[in-house]
């Protein structure tokens, strides 16, 4: 099942044309008990095809457990975006980034390639000051129009500071995890397990929460 149609493909060729450096999409799947693994992998193959500077690496959660450990991959399907040096910047997607989330995937790829938008200098300084490890989970549904904004902000923070890592989590694919974190509104943002924000919050709000940890 192809997800990209001709119109989106043409647009993506143009968008990916702006990429400064290469980006590797590392996809982790599993043979059994993963309903959306195949769709996710097929979708990423389509994305690889339209981006000259995009490479795809396929990993099996069990056979490549070392790699999974290296990138802190805990569930499948999952996608880690690696920069041109093969480095993990803490930017991850759990579940297929289809529906509206194609937008956060593309933003992520552009950001990791080094062609992202600048953060205003006042915010940049605040982000640089964060010294403690921060883990941001952003729960989304694929039909949610303002979820990609929240995901992109979390990913941006991860890119700006190596102490921060951020994951999109598709709530229906990982329904047990969603129940564990009481997700019944999206985007739901969980910072270091017990701090939560609901809604597409401004980046300052993320920072306030992180600074109060």
């Amino acid at each position, binding site marked *: 099942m192809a997800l990209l149609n001709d119109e989106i493909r043409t647009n993506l060729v143009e968008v990916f044309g702006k990429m400064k450096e290469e980006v590797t999409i590392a996809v982790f799947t599993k043979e059994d008990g993963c309903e959306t693994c195949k769709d996710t992998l097929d979708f990423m193959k389509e994305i690889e095809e339209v981006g000259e500077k995009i490479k795809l690496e396929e990993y099996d959660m069990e056979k490549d457990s070392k790699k999974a450990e290296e990138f802190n991959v805990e569930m499948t399907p999952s996608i880690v975006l690696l920069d041109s040096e093969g480095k993990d910047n803490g930017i991850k997607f759990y579940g297929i980034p289809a*529906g*509206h989330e194609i937008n956060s995937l593309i933003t992520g790829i*552009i950001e990791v390639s080094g062609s992202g938008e600048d953060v205003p200098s006042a915010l940049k300084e605040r982000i640089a000051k964060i010294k403690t490890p921060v883990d941001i989970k952003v729960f989304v549904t694929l039909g949610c129009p303002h979820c990609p904004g929240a995901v992109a902000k979390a990913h941006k923070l991860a890119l700006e500071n190596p102490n921060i890592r951020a994951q999109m989590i598709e709530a229906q694919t990982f329904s047990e995890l969603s129940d564990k974190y009481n*997700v019944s509104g999206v985007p739901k943002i969980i910072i270091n397990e017990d701090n939560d924000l609901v809604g597409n919050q401004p980046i300052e709000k993320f920072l306030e929460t992180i600074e109060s940890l």
Partner: protein
Amino acid sequence: MGFELNFDSSSLKSNTKKIEENVIYDVLIIGAGPAGLNSALYATRNGLNAGLIADKYGGQVLDTSSVENYLGYESIPGEDLVGAFREHVEKYEIPIKKDSRVEKVEKKENRFFLSMSDGTELKSKTLIIATGSKPRKLNVPGEEKFSGKGVAYCAICDGPLFQGRDVVIAGGGNSAVEAAIDIAKIANKVYLVQRSVLRAEQALVDKLETLNNVEIRLGTQVKEIYGEKLVKGIKVYNKVEDKEFDIKADGIFVEIGSVPNSGPFKDLVETLPNGEIVIDCSCNTSVPGLFAAGDVTTVPYKQISISSGEGAKAALSANAYINKLK
């Protein structure tokens, strides 16, 4: 779960220009819903040096699953409609500042000074406020506590999380009935609870009445939302029977209209007690050089077509004002 892609080409493709701190713009437009976007179109086409500021680029229409009353489109997903608006506006290369909020506005010697949430300061000769509205709250016990834990305000976002569950929709206007129809497709049971009578368009009510997992409770007021970690149900009061009773449900979608986003401007401009910015039929406010358009104003009927028309009018009024300054 459908994977169908909702590709946002305008925001990913655009090399939009940035708003500069050291420029004095002819007009700054706050808000990028139908009103702000149409203001931007008319302002740039009239040769004004304009800038557009948007917290949520596209406004409320992004949260609308399908629009069926915009002239020329029988039925179009809200985000496709607003995507077309944005693409049109971007043809004129207007500088846009996204994802940031205006926190305060001051007027000093015929200049407007805007303080932004990211710490930047912007300046202009005229200003158009098109900040729209946000969902009205029920203001009942439990609503705040369970917000995002079963209490929801965006049906197309949070609907999928209630697959196979029981859901209450509070309200009786178009958006409530649309939400009930949408959520009935996946929920086990939907209760539509409305204080008075249904006010939605007949076409929608007819559709609602064909669904057999929807129960409509009119004359019924929500009194309390209760639960533990998550919502477990609501307490309601029925006026006709003068009785209180319980509806067990896993979620409640509040669709009872909207309140204007006029908070940052209340010290500067005249508003009604309900928060609406007072305008005349040329979109003038109580402050010379300050115009307002769309849902945030006293204009009756909050609709996409009305807001976009008002936006055009505000830009034309700003243009006339600037011409008089020259």
